[in-house]
Structures are given as C-alpha cells and as structure tokens.
C-alpha cells in the first residue's frame, strides 16, 4: 500500500502480521483487530449482498398480483431468509464487529483489544453460524419458512429445517456475546493515559452501551431458541400448546432479546453520526455528556418496552398500556441525540463531503422511522396497523434508513483510514443521492399500503395495491443499481484509488493521529491524551506533527 512517498514511512498492518505466515494464512490466523475488522467487512458485505438479492426477488414477485415468478411457499422462505440474513448476519454484527473492531482500539489509543485471540474466535464462530444458515437451505426438508421471529407453535410444527437455522442463530448470538465481552473489557482496561471516560469519543460510548446489550440480552434468546430445538427434537413440553405450553411466553422471551437487539443495531450508528458531524462541521459536539448518557439511557430503556411487539398477541390490558407508556419514553433519549446533532451543525463551517451527506440522509430517514414508531407504539393505532406493510416500512426506515445508511456513512468516512486510499468523491455523492431517492421510492409506498390494510408476508395482493407495489419494485431496482455503484466505487478505489493523506477530513479523534493505513501496533508510542475528543484547536498541532 505504501507508495514510498515519504522515505521514512513505516510498514502498515497490511505488510506486517501478528503471525509468521504470509498470504491468506496471515489473515485467517491473525489476532490483529484491524485485520479481523476487515475479515468481518468482507464476510458481512457478502451476506448483505445476498440479502439484497433476496429482497429484490421478493419485490419482483410483487410487481403484479398473483404468482409472478414464484409460488407462495418459495415466497415464505424468501422473506424468512431475507430477515434472518439481514438481521443476524448483517445488521447486528455489522457496525460493532467491523468498525468497532477496527476503530475501538484506535480511538482509545490501545494496541489491540483486550482478548485478541478471543476476537479471532468470535469471527470463526460467526463464520460457522453463517455456514449453518447456508447448509439449512440445501438439506432435505427445505429452507426455513417461519419468518425470522420463529413464532411458536408454527416453528415447532413446520417440517422445514427450522432446528438447524435457529441453531445457527444461537451460534451467531454466541459470537455477538464474545465480541461484546471483549469490547467492555477493552474500554475498561486499555484506554491510553489521559483518556478519561469523558474524553472518549462518542462512538466508543455507543459501542460500550451496545456491548452491554449484547452481553445481557443475547443469552435470553439463546436459551429460548435452544428450547425450541429441544421441543422439536425430543417433544419436551415448553412452549407448544399441545404440550401444555404458552406461545405468549415464547413471544415474551423472544422480544426480551429482540427489542434490545434493535438498539444493538442502531446505537453504534448513532455513535458514528456523533463522530462524523463534528468533523465536517468543524465544531465540537454540542452536549457531549448528554449524548454519552443518552446512549446508556437508550440501552437501559430498551429493556423496558419489548411487549409493544405483542399488543395483538393476547397479553393483558394492564401490560399493554404500561408497555405503550414505556415505549414513548424511548423517544426521549433518541430525541436528545437528534437535537444535539442539529445543534452541533448550527453556525459550524460545514463541509458537505460524502460521509456528511450520508449522515444528512440518516437524520431524515431515521426521524421518519422513529416518528412512525410512535404511531405503532400507541395502542389504538397499533391494533389497526399491526402486521401490515406499515410495520414493514417503519422498521426498514429505522434499520436500513438508520443503521444501513450509517453503515455506508462509516464506510465512506473511515475508508481512507482503513485502506490508505481515496474513493471517487463524485461517484460517492451520486450514490448518496440515488440511495435517498431509491429508498423512499422503495419504502414510502409501504406506509400508504399498510395504512390501507395491506398485510405483510403475503405473496399476493388485491388489484388496488398494484400501482404502489410497482413504484416500490422500481425503487428496489434503483436501490440495486445504487449498491452496484457504491461497491464498484469502493472496490475500484482499494485497487487503483489515489493515495489518501493521513487525515483527509480533518478529524481530531485518535485514529486520525496515526498513519493511513495504521501500523501493526497502531501508534509509534501510546499517545497521551490531553484534549477533549472534539477539540479542533489540535488540528494545527497535528499538521506540524505530520511534517
């Protein structure tokens, strides 16, 4: 990677490895957090592309009423796989495992994470889980068709390969737990001298909060789906009503994990936003502590609201209004963040580079997703909208419009640091604009259809929905093109892009204090932190240092 422009330039982590091997083995046996981050990047992107293709196929089926390119059962397996892959293989590990791994040690001035070998093991466990998902597709019995929620009793009775697929989810959960455990210990034990809790970049705060959810919530779903396997394999009476069980208990346990998991997905994205906005507004973050604590608050309140997924499942009325009330409380810390971000931009000297544009897109899409969440959180409207396209649109706005957008935002922000190369700014700008248009074409019609009563998970629909369905399908094609542009731009730049300067955006957090790409041990010497994380007065000093 190093072009030898500076005579004294040291070796980057691409040229030096933690083990004695070279080539592919030096990657597969690495304990370097940066290489592990890139391993995750490659595997997670591969599954993301699979998920996108499944999504496009589903949209294609829905271009006209009646069976178009597939039968109902195929459609059932498609939406299940789309959900399982996007949630367990892409969005939950996405930001923490890729960018958390790569940038957590860099941002706190450490040489690596606390348990480097465990870190590599987590990646292998992730890969094993992913392979199990793939195997479950091809074994006799057929791919899973229960929906990604694996609701009882159908998941006990379905003849498809449910057991293997949910065991894969269990294995993936284990990987997530080990990553979280590693990050918490790293944050507690490995901060550079002078890096107090309130000098940590906000991305670290969000990753730290996320790690807590990963540790505390994941075991609950782990045991739940393990028992579903037991129930299928041995007929143990736990959830199935035929064996005396209560399906609502399954739903409780499932959402005790899966609602906090929403915050595993979205908190790191919020952390990235808190990094990008100060850098491109050249202004210190407004309300640092408020944002830091709101991450912890979201992590905590996230545990209190799970049953709003179950308003129509037959839970008690008292529980319904309590959970509805608690749900509205989550909006508060999220609102704190949005207002602080906007306040940071106020009177800043904004430099609208691609990462910043992704953030703008995030704020709009995530706000729509968040506000429609309130519509679903309130009891009366939820009864009408439950299990319709409205829900589908809502969570795609939050997950894809929120976390997905920032996945690209983070990629475009840290790409020069990760690869030492710069991508085409022009094509990056085009891809943001196209993404925004495609996204709204794809998902906004679903709000309207859902409001009109179009139920989710149907492969057929009444003729009056045709126009909106067609708009949505065309949006999915545009989204596919956008993805091709994004990945083509980035892959081309890894190979042939111009060499990027050390600090292309003028960021001041610690990762910008070292070379691009960073050396094996991140820093020549462990830095001593003397500034607040977003103190841009250091920018002048940094320029001198690098010369």
């Amino acid at each position, binding site marked *: 990677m190093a072009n030898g422009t500076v005579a004294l330039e040291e070796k980057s982590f691409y040229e030096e490895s933690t083990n004695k091997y070279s080539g592919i083995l030096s990657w597969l046996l690495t304990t370097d957090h940066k290489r592990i981050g890139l391993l995750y990047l490659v595997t997670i992107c591969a599954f993301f592309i699979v998920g996108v293709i499944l999504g496009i196929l589903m949209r294609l089926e829905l271009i006209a009423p009646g069976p178009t390119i597939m039968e109902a059962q195929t459609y059932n397996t498609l939406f299940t796989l789309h959900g399982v892959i996007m949630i367990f293989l892409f969005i939950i590990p996405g930001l923490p495992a890729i960018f958390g791994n790569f940038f957590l040690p860099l941002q706190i001035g450490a040489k690596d994470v606390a348990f480097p070998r465990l870190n590599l093991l987590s990646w292998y466990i992730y890969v094993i889980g992913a392979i199990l998902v793939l195997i479950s597709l091809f074994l006799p019995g057929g791919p899973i068709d229960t929906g990604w929620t694996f609701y009882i009793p159908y998941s006990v009775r379905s003849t498809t390969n449910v057991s293997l697929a949910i065991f894969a989810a269990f294995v993936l959960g284990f990987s997530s737990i080990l990553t979280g455990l590693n990050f918490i210990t790293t944050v*507690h034990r490995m901060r550079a001298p002078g890096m107090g809790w309130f000098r940590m970049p906000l991305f670290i705060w969000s990753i730290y909060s996320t790690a*807590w959810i990963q540790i*505390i919530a994941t075991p*609950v779903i782990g045991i739940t789906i393990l028992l579903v396997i037991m129930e299928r394999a041995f007929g143990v009476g736990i959830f199935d009503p035929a064996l005396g069980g209560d399906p*609502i208990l399954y739903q*409780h346990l499932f959402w*005790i994990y899966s609602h906090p998991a929403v915050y595993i997905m979205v908190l790191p994205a919020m952390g990235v936003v808190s990094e990008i906005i100060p850098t491109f507004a050249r202004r210190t973050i407004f309300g640092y502590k408020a944002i830091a604590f709101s991450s912890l608050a979201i992590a905590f309140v996230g*545990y*209190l609201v*799970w*049953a709003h997924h179950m308003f129509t499942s037959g*839970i*008690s*009325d*008292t*529980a319904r209004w*309590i*959970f509805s009330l608690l749900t509205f409380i989550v909006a508060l810390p999220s609102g704190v963040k949005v207002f602080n971000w906007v306040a940071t931009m106020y009177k800043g000297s904004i430099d609208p580079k691609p990462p910043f544009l992704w953030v703008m897109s995030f704020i709009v899409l995530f706000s729509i997703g968040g506000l429609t969440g309130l519509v679903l959180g309130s009891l009366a409207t939820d009864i009408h909208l439950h299990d319709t396209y409205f829900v589908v649109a809502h969570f795609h706005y939050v997950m894809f419009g929120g976390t997905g957008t920032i996945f690209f935002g983070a990629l475009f922000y840290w790409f020069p640091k990760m690869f030492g190369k710069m991508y085409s700014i022009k094509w990056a700008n085009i891809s943001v604009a196209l993404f925004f248009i495609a996204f709204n074409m794809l998902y906004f019609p679903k709000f309207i259809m859902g409001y009109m009563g179009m139920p989710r998970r149907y492969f057929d629909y009444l003729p009056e929905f045709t126009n909106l369905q067609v708009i949505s399908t065309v949006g999915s094609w545009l989204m596919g093109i956008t993805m091709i542009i994004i990945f083509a731009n980035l892959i081309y730049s890894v190979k042939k892009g111009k060499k990027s300067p050390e600090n292309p955006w003028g960021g001041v957090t610690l990762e910008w204090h070292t070379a691009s790409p960073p050396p094996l041990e991140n820093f020549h010497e462990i830095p001593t932190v003397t500034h607040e994380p977003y103190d841009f007065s250091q920018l002048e000093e940094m320029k001198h240092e690098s010369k």
Partner: protein
Amino acid sequence: MNEDKQNKENHEHITPYSTYVLVWLALIALTSITVTVSGIDFGMVALAIAMLIAAVKSSLVINIFMHIKFDEPIFKVFLMVSLFTLVIIFVLTFFDLVNR
C-alpha cells in the same frame, strides 16, 4: 481514584482456609434448614422462605467463594446491572401474567 494501587491491594488478598471452611459450614447448615422447613406446610410462604435461604446462600458464595467482596468495586456494579436487568424482566413479564 487510583485504580492501580487498589488493584495491587486486591491482588494481595488471599482468603484464609478457615474462612472458606466457615462459609462451607454455614452453607451446609442453611441447606439442612431449607430441607427441614420444606417439610412443614407454610402454604405460599414456603416458596418465599426457600428463595430467601437460597439468596442468602448465593450471597455467601458470591461474596466469599467468588470473593467479589474483595475485588474491584466495578465488578459489583456489573453484578448489580445484571441482577437488576433480570428483576426488570421478571417484573414486567408478571405485569402481563398477573393481570390476564
């Protein structure tokens, strides 16, 4: 707070054998109490008594055998966070069940 100094102190702390044996005796005594009490019909209170004794036993194990008492204070905070989460999950689930 100077964590490093504290670390060193904790590191030095070796629990004597006699403490462990005393705790073990207490645990066995509590076990025999809980078995004996379970023979008497206290109705609904029986479960509460059994859980209370189990809680006392586990606090002995956690504090002395697992010596969280002498360890980093942050571990206690972590433990509280986990237990608190568990309590919340129980309470909110029962909000549903009790009122159904």
